[in-house]
């Protein structure tokens, strides 16, 4: 009998143990486990891997502790630019978006590109226009504001560096 399986990630990097309290660690693990439950429930119901990964990533995008969707970091200009992609192994169809702003769930926009366009990757204002035509939900900048991300950005601006998420002691100038 075919087994079902799902795996998720919420980013990688130099995650400092010294900056991780037990409560914070439990919070991250709870969020990851909840995401797995979303996808596993879909798979256990006999639905597709494609639906499982989209709904799981959508869940993670709505979780502000991860750098995606609502939890996206600040750009140099103080905006939030998001990228997303999805690919179906059965059909080899793929959709992706890059540098989109104010889209609540970029993964849903990527899937719209996959399903409803003849293209694979749309970017910037054009991708946003496509998203509006497809009726996706857009949010004001305030939806993406997070005080911790803002402080990260101020520090990066002060030191003129570009930083990976979860990598607090290494910077790329």
């Amino acid at each position, binding site marked *: 009998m075919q087994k079902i399986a799902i795996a998720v990630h919420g980013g*990688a990097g130099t995650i400092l143990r010294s900056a991780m309290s037990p409560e914070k660690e439990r919070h991250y693990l709870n969020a990851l486990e909840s995401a797995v439950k979303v996808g596993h429930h879909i798979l*256990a119901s006999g639905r597709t891997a494609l639906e499982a990964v989209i709904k799981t990533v959508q869940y993670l995008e709505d979780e502000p502790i991860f750098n995606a969707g609502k939890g996206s970091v600040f750009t140099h200009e103080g905006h939030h630019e998001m990228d997303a992609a999805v690919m179906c192994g059965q059909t080899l169809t*793929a959709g992706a978006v890059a540098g989109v702003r104010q889209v609540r769930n970029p993964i849903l926009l*990527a899937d719209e590109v996959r399903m409803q366009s003849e293209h694979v990757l749309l970017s910037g204002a054009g991708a946003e226009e496509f998203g509006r035509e497809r009726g996706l939900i857009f949010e004001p900048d305030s939806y993406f504001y997070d005080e911790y991300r803002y402080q990260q950005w101020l520090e990066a601006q002060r030191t003129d560096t570009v930083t*990976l998420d979860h990598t607090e002691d290494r910077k790329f100038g």
Partner: protein
Amino acid sequence: TVGAVAVDVSGNLAAATSTGGMTNKKYNRIGDSPIIGAGTYAANHTCAVSCTGHGEYFMRAVVAYDVACLMEYKGVNLQQACDYVVKDKLVKQGGEGGLIAVDQAANIILSFNSEGMYRASRLNNESIYSRIYKD
């Protein structure tokens, strides 16, 4: 960056990745996440892969497709393919990060060369595995 990979009851694979990029990035920089084959890839009979880390390295190494190619062309299993790409090839090039992958037989690989990777998985009705740091 967040991502998910899965195999369903019909043996079909899928991968998805989403990211908010890098703090303080300029010039509309784009990383590997939306690049099919670099940060995200799903094949028909080999594997589905979602990556996270320093995107420029993942793009140059075409990481996600590389894992699938190693399986398809060289016949290695998912574990061997992921270990080679993440812990050998990427490390030699200075790329930090990791990936999650699953194959048609529902083997799950959570591989990274950094201090940690926020990760979790579940196979069938087994209990959920979740970790941040290396085991």
